[in-house]
């Protein structure tokens, strides 16, 4: 942090809002000029206006722990919402909660657990994310199978745009079609459109039974048949996940509901798969589900491939014999996340896997690479000029001056 920057920023935000750049703020921490942690919306807006005036890019973060994508070149600051972490409105009877963007998911979960309610999402490292970071990343995790995508459950937001404008998007109610849904592109935009300062989310009742059905096999492809059979069965599980970690291959089917429902669904799942599963209930189920959720969270390599679910077998066949890879597949979506152990050569693995996947997948996204990798972050999907033009137009609606960094890979 240069003295010039500190002095200049001190004119618009209090000293206590400024922090030293470091790896504590995630991957981009060391390269930032400064980290600004505003305590309210006015300070967010002031910081962004200052950045626009000084030609400094703004990278919005929560904790910074899950920042992915391309690092900005030139001067940039990290704007963390970590000091904006209060619950603003929680009405259990409405199953909705409004909170500032910096509220951690684990803190939110403690509040909602008192009423047996929860946010039913499970992206990697879910509890250590912030609510705003979750909205900016737009990642749901495999529980989307039973609950729908995160973007369907973000009812409202407040944001600060690239020119410091404050906007209230959406609302606090679960059904709302009053105007164009300009909230939707903000979800998943990774901060490229606006800094999210608060969110209203829909909560769900915690299921009476949380059961994980586990089936092990020697290889991933051995599990594809049962996995697809479960995905085509007449029940809709909460999630269907295929994993391989340290060469242990498992199919995990998560069932939520009343005890009678879970029992009946288990019978249907086993009949569809043609084999009995091992059932794990309650706290043990959650521990196992959480460990599977976080596979690859610390890996230097994160590579995500997408196909239609009926073609998942082709994708898995590519990695089936690469037993040094950790794999986590969302069977209902048809997506596959590949990571590797810390001691592995991530760059070499990326070389081996990427091209094979690109022949099969509709989309291969390289989300994270080791420093100095010969590969580049990005997606294999070629978006049409027309789509790119529309995206640029939407960007201009929120951030015409291009102050907010678009680090999407």
């Amino acid at each position, binding site marked *: 942090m240069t003295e010039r920057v500190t002095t200049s920023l001190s004119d618009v935000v209090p000293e206590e809002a400024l922090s030293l750049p470091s790896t504590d703020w995630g991957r981009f921490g060391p390269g930032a000029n400064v980290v600004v942690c505003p305590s309210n919306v006015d300070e967010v807006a002031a910081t962004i206006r200052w950045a626009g005036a000084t030609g400094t890019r703004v990278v919005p973060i929560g904790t910074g722990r899950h920042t992915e994508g391309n690092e900005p070149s030139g001067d940039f600051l990290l704007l963390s919402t970590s000091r904006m972490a209060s619950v603003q409105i929680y009405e259990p009877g409405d199953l909705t909660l409004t909170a500032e963007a910096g509220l951690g998911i684990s803190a939110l979960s403690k509040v909602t657990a008192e009423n047996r309610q929860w946010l039913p999402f499970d992206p990697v490292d879910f509890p250590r994310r912030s609510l705003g970071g979750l909205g900016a990343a737009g990642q749901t995790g495999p529980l989307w199978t039973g609950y729908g995508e995160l973007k369907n459950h973000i009812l409202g937001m407040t944001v600060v745009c690239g020119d410091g404008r404050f906007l209230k998007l959406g609302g606090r109610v679960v*059904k709302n079609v009053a105007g164009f849904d300009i909230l939707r*592109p903000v979800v998943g935009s990774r901060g490229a*459109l606006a800094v999210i300062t608060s969110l209203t989310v829909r909560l769900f009742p915690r299921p009476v039974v949380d059961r994980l059905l586990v089936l092990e096999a020697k290889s991933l492809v051995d599990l594809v048949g049962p996995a697809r059979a479960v995905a085509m069965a*007449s029940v809709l599980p909460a999630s269907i996940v295929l994993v391989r970690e340290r060469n242990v291959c498992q199919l995990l089917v998560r069932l939520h509901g009343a005890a*009678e429902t879970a029992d009946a669904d288990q019978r249907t799942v086993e009949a569809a798969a043609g084999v009995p599963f091992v059932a794990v209930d309650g706290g043990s189920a959650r521990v196992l589900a959480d460990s599977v959720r976080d596979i690859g969270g610390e890996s230097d390599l994160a590579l995500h491939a997408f196909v239609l679910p009926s073609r998942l077998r082709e994708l898995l066949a590519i990695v089936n014999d690469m037993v040094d890879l950790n794999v986590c597949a969302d069977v209902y979506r048809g997506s596959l996340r590949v990571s590797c152990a810390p001691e592995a050569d991530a760059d070499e693995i990326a070389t081996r896997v990427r091209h094979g996947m690109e022949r099969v997948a509709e989309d291969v996204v390289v989300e994270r690479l080791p420093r100095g990798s010969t590969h580049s972050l990005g997606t294999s999907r070629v*978006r049409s000029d027309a*789509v790119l033009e*529309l995206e640029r*137009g*939407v960007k201009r609606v929120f951030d015409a001056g291009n102050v907010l960094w678009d680090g999407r890979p």
Partner: protein
Amino acid sequence: MSSPLPAAVVRSLREIVGRGHLITEPDRLVVYESDGLTAYRVPPRAVVLPASTEEVSRVVAVLHAANIAVIPRGAGTGLSGGALATAEGVVVGTARMNAILEIDASNRLARVQPGVINARLTEAAKPHGLYYAPDPSSQSTCTLGGNVAENSGGPHCLKYGVTSRYVTSLTVVLAHGRVVSLGGAGADPNASLDLVGLFVGSEGCFGIATEIEVRLLPIAEGVRTLLGIFDTMEAAGRAVTSIMGIGLLPAAMEIVDNATIRAVEASVFAAGYPIDAGAALIVEFDGTEAGLDADADRAEACCVQEGASAVQRAAEADHRAALWKGRKKAFGAMGRIAPDLLVQDATVPRTRLPEVLVRIAELGERYDLKIANVFHAGDGNLHPNILFDRLDLDELDRVERASKEIMALCVEVGGTITGEHGVGIDKRDYMPLVHGPEELAAMAAAKAVFDPDGLFNPDKVLPLRTQGTEPAAGAEA
């Protein structure tokens, strides 16, 4: 009276769609002068009925080249005047684009043209054990294209969500006939901005969806329907809160009030609801057969605890239909009470329902209007129905004032002015109740990204003053 189309435009349109699919005769245009909200009527200059994406593209190109507005229209069942032919526009109807292009059962997807009737998709998916979840009340007549435009819901969206949850990709025709594909079920949903989500619910103001890919769900193994009879609306409202409070998530929870019950029971749609009941609450569960009775038992206990005088339960289709009849025929039954009906649509936080219903009743008394309530109680989506005679100008004025106060009331308690019917022309001028000038300007700028010349469904959704400031953010950059 709209002016006739220039002869050159007529010739071009006929060449694209064929003589039989361009309507210009005034007596045939009458059919298209309003949608389901008949209080607004404007005959279009013409109606064009293309049969393919290519034809839609060419039609839009011809009309926009002549600076003529395009008014997209599905089945015309909308309730906000969204398909009204404002700005001397030409209606482009999707009625001929009614093919189900593919049911991909192995990926639980369907690809359809926009003129496909909502219920027909569910019928087509049924042999595969699948169905399409959003079920607006007009599902036997409304189209998927209209559902996309309005982001339609329905009674069962309490559990299953609205249209935007199910649309995975769209082919859209934008300004001057440009064809663009958005999204895709097999792609990374976060690799690009959510343009599909932005387009859904844009009420025909961004362009015309000509191909729609949606997710299908497995048909539930079983269904249980409960009908609880209550002395008061407050008690029924408390039962709703109680059911949700113990962790149940019904597929639907609907309430009809005494005024509605009386209207239904006095009509040919009589459903056997007691006419002295304060409210009737329908609760429906679906899912795995084994758990349904347990869920229904717990919901019934909530109803009894909150004072239900009777609770009926049905598992078989015929019996369930009988319990639903009073709800589903409510709007039809009101026709015998008054010549005109304004179906309001607003959403409030569920816990504020009892208070809001009392205040709506007070408004009815204050304005000397009969208001009957039918609503999706589970998600706080109210439908106060104001009965009136449009020939009585004094009454019409009171209807408008009461209507505005109802919306302001819903906003005051944390709700919004429309939960599922859309803004259209009907609520356009009430948008400032829920959105400030900056938000409205951002919406206008978003429209300009898709429709820079403002030629798709002009004069809808955004207050005219906002539409006049469209270039402020997006169009200039």
